[in-house]
């Protein structure tokens, strides 16, 4: 139970970062953190039903659930791809408006248009 509470806490910290941080790089940090939290949740919970890695060789006991592991491989990679694209956009925003501050960027965008 403690593990679940800690993972939820991690998720909420990341989410608060996305919503509350003004620096867009920190918002991207938050996105990475909530992604990690969900991946951790899948793996931690999926590992409760077995006691050996899902690789079948000789006589092994019950393996952990391999399905969440395979799904999380995909989710991790997709998360990093989105992060990279977000960073490229953040780079462009910095070059155009000279700041990582989301309010400052908003202000400049709306002043110009």
């Amino acid at each position: 139970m403690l593990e679940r509470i800690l993972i939820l806490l991690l998720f909420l910290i990341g989410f608060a970062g996305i919503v509350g941080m003004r620096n867009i790089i920190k918002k991207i940090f938050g996105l990475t953190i909530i992604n990690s939290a969900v991946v951790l949740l899948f793996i931690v919970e999926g590992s409760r039903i077995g006691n050996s890695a899902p690789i079948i060789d000789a006589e092994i006991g019950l393996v952990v659930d391999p399905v969440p592991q395979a799904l999380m491989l995909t989710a991790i990679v997709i998360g990093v791809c989105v992060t990279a694209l977000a960073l490229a956009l953040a780079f462009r925003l910095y070059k155009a408006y000279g700041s990582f501050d989301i309010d400052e960027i908003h202000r400049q965008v709306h002043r110009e248009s």
Partner: protein
Amino acid sequence: MKFTGRFTVSPESSVFSLVMLPLLGAALVMLAKAFLKGRMAAGMQFTAMLVGLFGPWLALLYTFPLVWSGLTVEGVIGNWSGVVGITFQFDGLAWLINALGYTVAGAAWIYSLGAGPRGPVFSSVFLIQTAALAATAMTADIFNLFVCLEVLGIASYVLVASSEKNGAFLASFSYLMVSASSMVFFLAGLFGLYRLTGSLSYSGISQALLALPDQGGGLAAISLSLIIAAVAMRVAMMPLYGWLPDAHALAPHAVSAVLSGVLIKTPLFALSRIMLIVPLGAAAAQLLGYAGAATAIVAVLVALSQKDAKRLLAYHSISQIGYVVCAWGAALDLGMDTMAGQHLMTAAFLHAFYHALFKGLLFLSIGTSTDRAGSRNVYTLRGAASTLRQSGERLPITLLSFIIAALAISAIPPLNGYASKIAITYSLKGSWQYWVLSAASIGTIASFIKLSRIFWPQPARIRLMATEEPSAVFMPSVATARHSGLPAQIVPGPMTDTSAVKRANLPVGISQAMLALACVASGLAAPWLYGFVLRLLDSAASLGFTSLNPGPALYTADNLLKTLYMVLAGFVLFRLAVSALGSRLLSLVRDRHRGFHGLFLSFAVGLSVLCVWLLLV
């Protein structure tokens, strides 16, 4: 012609060529970029686009007889076991979504040939987006739905950012953050459902949930609402639409057409597949239907207050998707095994299809006119018709396209918008949604009278103003260059975006003419199309309602009279809106920039409302 040899194309293969052909096209574009130079590369890219966007029509034609006769092509990809493998389902609905997607994507690509963007990166991303649309339409596996939505998402972030307009990077960034975060919530919902059911396919999930005591209880309700909220974010429904106006208004015109026309509807119809079979799905659909009605009226009011022409159109996309969601939600609430449900779903799809046609046409024609006139301000731009004529357009195709599309979205007979709006209100008659949607239609008429003023001749006073201050909208690249400190050859000058559009060119005309003809033809053929869609959806449910009730009668005196009243009311509303008092009131509802956190606050509120609703029913 019959295949007589040993080589036969299985239905499954032809279904997957809908996904694989655009991907193959994308691969060809990339190969061309990597290995070839100059004319060869351009030629190969052109061929690849033809293969990717028009080749799938062969597969659609090939699978049509199957779908028409009521068969559903379904199975597990790669013939693996269904316990872990990915289930897919190609039925009438999937066929219709694919037809919609490839129609609009084809027209948008032809337009982009003339007006840009047209680089290899754009082409490959565009094709990948089209492929993801096809895959979304036929998946019956919840994690595969997640992957498809992510592909759609990442392609559209890149496409929105490919605009050179001021603020496009911010629009793309906001869209990315909001939708990527909502996809993490989708994963959390997926976790809940997997924990309850141990299954990822829709049918497996619904069977396991039905077998559980209390049908999964609170966890099922919350997981479902997490998934629905994440998809509703993409659909841009009532509280969750904050990202859309910027993204759609700042994207290149051809991309705007696809984003508004197809991209926001495909997730909605893909969602219906799981909502139909999961317990609580009907209740969720009911709430979404109510939100859709609210969306239709609120967004049209905001649209009426806009001054940027493309933003106005973007708000109309939200409003029109509200109509679709309203009918869609009511249909799923009633269930697809009832006659009223079937008719509502038909109306919803028909409106989505027609909206894709006329909104695509609107984005293209308004985009062309405003680019040539050099301003997008609805209040100051006048005389766009003569500007178009001066730019060498001998046939007034752009003007005619705009008129046709504006009449269509205002639901004037005999254009297609009339038919689908009548179809939606016909099935909703007597409910409160009927009145809300009618009011929204009046608002639509008023705001398109307002928009059409940009084509009116230029009065002397405004002409003076226009020459004094060149519009600020079209100087973004200079600003970007100044801020970025990059040398001039990297950041193009202000004219690169528009130079192609400055002169009339053939692809722009052709794509507009195609869509305009499609609007008129689909309006005239509306009764037939209604029967066609009804039959396809019916074959999915295989109940045979088609013969019992052929659908609403279009040109009754009642309906025509109602349209007349609505046009009059719309004109009155327009006069009110441009009066001094009206414009002051409207400036109150004009989209306040609620800031970045506002987007997330609305997501959190929408999500928790949906949760509470599902827990209470």
